[in-house]
């Protein structure tokens, strides 16, 4: 289902759309309060953007530096060209351990690679330990938001879900009790699983360490209790130096949820004694995007989700309408790189209002890239034939003043005298909006009469 159809379905429930919009707008307001408390906020954004600029221009060297330093610390480094190779690497580590049950904390990369279904098909049970992700996992759904995976679920609905899966009392919708139930259930998994997968927020080239940010401590709990820690990261997560964390950690959570910092910003530098630590560095289209000059800045993304929370379209269509692991404005500029045919609709799911680009903590010009993707997709034949035809007609009319004036006259005459020509169910404008009332004369006609042609 394309975005417009999914969004129409989403909007059928008016009150739920209101609730979804207001919930996310509340997060945007929290972001505003956090950002406005930092006088040098705009300078921080610029600095972060420039650091990432440097990273993207020297990615190959930073990756090699990171690998060397990580290996020195006893971390095993793997390279995956694409999602499939990433999944194979993870599975091969699990097989070498003889493990069929694992825990995993939040990682949008593993969502992007569809690791969970792959492991399930291969006989491995994956338990997502982030509370929001656990909820959507129990509901057999993908996350609808990269930071707030179950933001589309109401607490009453989670109560029903937990009653079914975790045995909470029927009708219980108390967030504290539900969270306790999830915690008790997850505790047993943490204690018994021998392998833990985590994502990576930042990987530091100069030290070979990586940083994982969570609010729940679930990444730490998983990694510290497991014999084997596998960290999966996209290659763009590299930063040159540890001191750069001082910029990114200040921006990340203020942008994401309005908190000053994540509850846990954990540095993983080397395996503890007897533990194995693996890092899987994944390309999966990133080097292709790096080569697309007008889109390469999209790789600066630190996955804070601020562009989603501010996006008036995302708030009123929900994350699932973007049919991609990463939804919202950033998803709409990343997804076509992965599959133009499947994701040709996404860059059009925007009014180009520009709010996304201006909340982005690394200053990605998201709305300009949406515009550029529209051009690229159209030129490479991913636009419907009927649309191309109507655009050609429009262009012919609008570039010829005589035809334009005549069409305008005929159009206004028809609207005034035979309104059913436009006021019908085939006109999407008219479904929920009145057409403008056609005036007797155009401005051009008035001008000619009143001022004469100059």
């Amino acid at each position, binding site marked *: 289902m394309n975005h417009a159809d999914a969004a129409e379905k989403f909007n059928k429930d008016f009150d739920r759309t209101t609730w979804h919009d207001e919930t996310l707008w509340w997060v945007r307001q929290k972001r505003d309060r956090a950002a406005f408390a930092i006088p040098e906020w705009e300078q921080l954004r610029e600095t972060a953007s420039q650091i990432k600029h440097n990273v993207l221009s020297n990615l190959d060297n930073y990756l090699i530096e990171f690998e060397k330093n990580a290996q020195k610390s006893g971390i095993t480094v793997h390279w995956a060209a694409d999602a499939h190779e990433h999944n194979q690497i993870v599975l091969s580590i699990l097989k070498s351990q003889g493990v069929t049950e694992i825990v995993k904390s939040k990682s949008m990369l593993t969502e992007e690679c569809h690791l969970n279904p792959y492991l399930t098909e291969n006989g491995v049970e994956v338990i997502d330990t982030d509370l929001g992700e656990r909820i959507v996992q129990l509901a057999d759904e993908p996350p609808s938001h990269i930071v707030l995976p179950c933001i589309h679920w109401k607490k009453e609905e989670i109560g029903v879900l937990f009653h079914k899966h975790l045995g909470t009392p029927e009708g219980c919708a108390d967030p504290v009790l539900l969270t306790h139930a999830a915690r008790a259930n997850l505790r047993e998994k943490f204690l018994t699983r021998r392998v833990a997968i985590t994502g990576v927020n930042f990987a530091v080239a100069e030290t070979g360490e990586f940083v994982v940010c969570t609010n729940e401590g679930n990444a730490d709990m998983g990694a510290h209790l497991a014999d084997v820690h596998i960290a999966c990261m996209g290659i763009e997560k590299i930063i040159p130096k540890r001191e750069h964390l001082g910029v990114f950690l200040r921006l990340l959570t203020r942008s994401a949820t309005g908190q000053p910092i994540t509850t846990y910003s954990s540095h993983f530098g080397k395996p503890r004694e007897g533990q194995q630590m693996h890092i899987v560095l994944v390309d999966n289209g990133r080097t292709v995007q790096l080569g697309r000059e007008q889109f390469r800045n999209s790789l600066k993304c630190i996955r804070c989700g601020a562009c989603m929370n501010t996006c008036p379209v995302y708030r009123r269509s929900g994350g699932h309408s973007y049919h991609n692991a990463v939804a919202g404005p950033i998803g709409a500029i990343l997804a076509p790189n992965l599959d133009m045919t499947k994701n040709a609709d996404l860059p059009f799911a925007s009014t180009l209002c520009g709010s996304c680009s201006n909340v982005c903590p690394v200053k990605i010009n998201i709305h300009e890239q949406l515009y550029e993707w529209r051009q690229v997709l159209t030129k490479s034949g991913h636009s419907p034939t009927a649309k191309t035809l109507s655009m050609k007609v429009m262009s012919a009319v609008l570039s010829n003043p005589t035809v334009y004036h005549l069409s305008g006259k005929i159009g206004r005459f028809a609207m005034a005298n035979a309104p059913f020509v436009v006021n019908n169910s085939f006109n999407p404008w008219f479904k929920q909006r009145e057409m403008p009332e056609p005036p007797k004369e155009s401005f*051009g006609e008035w001008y000619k009469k009143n001022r004469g042609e100059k």
Partner: protein
Amino acid sequence: MKVGLFIPCYVDQFYPQVGIATLQLLERFGCQVSYPAKQTCCGQPMANSGYEHLTHDCNRLFINNFSEFDYIVSPSGSCVLHIKDHLHDDKREGEATHVRTHIYELTEFLTDILKVENLTAHFPHRVGVHQSCHGQRGLHVAQMSELVAPPFSKPEKLLKMVTGLELVKLDRVDECCGFGGTFCVAEEAVSVRMGIDRVDDHIKNGTEVLTGGDMSCLMHLEGVIRRRQLPIKVMHIAEILNAK
């Protein structure tokens, strides 16, 4: 000062009173204004739909119509932004550059070029401003709520010079109305929902007259208002600044 009046296609066809008010305002401030009769459209409907490559003829026509003026002024921030960002011509890039760098949205022309400090307008109503995205985030006629930066608003500065006028404070000061060009039909459900929410904000805060610098957003909001028979009038800011 020779000013070329650029009246976008849909304003020409549906809102002649906006063109008239813009013309009269500029003349009141002593501009020598001409309206080139052969103008049509800026080409944005094609470009934003992914067909920028079909806008060459529109670009050529636009340059023919407007390259001779000192300034080009239009009552539409969105169309002005499109020209500023995308008007090019391989053979006449010098003229294209002149047009791109001398085109102004009406309120920024009044405040920045004419440096208007006084108006003789009178409009005794509660007025709510719809701050259109392209004017605001594109042309910076007002500060956007996302940036940690001092607030300002050129349209509101002008409206404050109108006697009797009371500005309405909104809950969401600069959320998009959902028009978005072809978005308004391609993503009809979200577009309308955004329009409804914008209008609700105005209703809730007591707007009598909803105004703005972009007639396209206002056309969309007016369509929602009229269908739902809500007690709000929609007027372009030029009409209010020109009100006696």
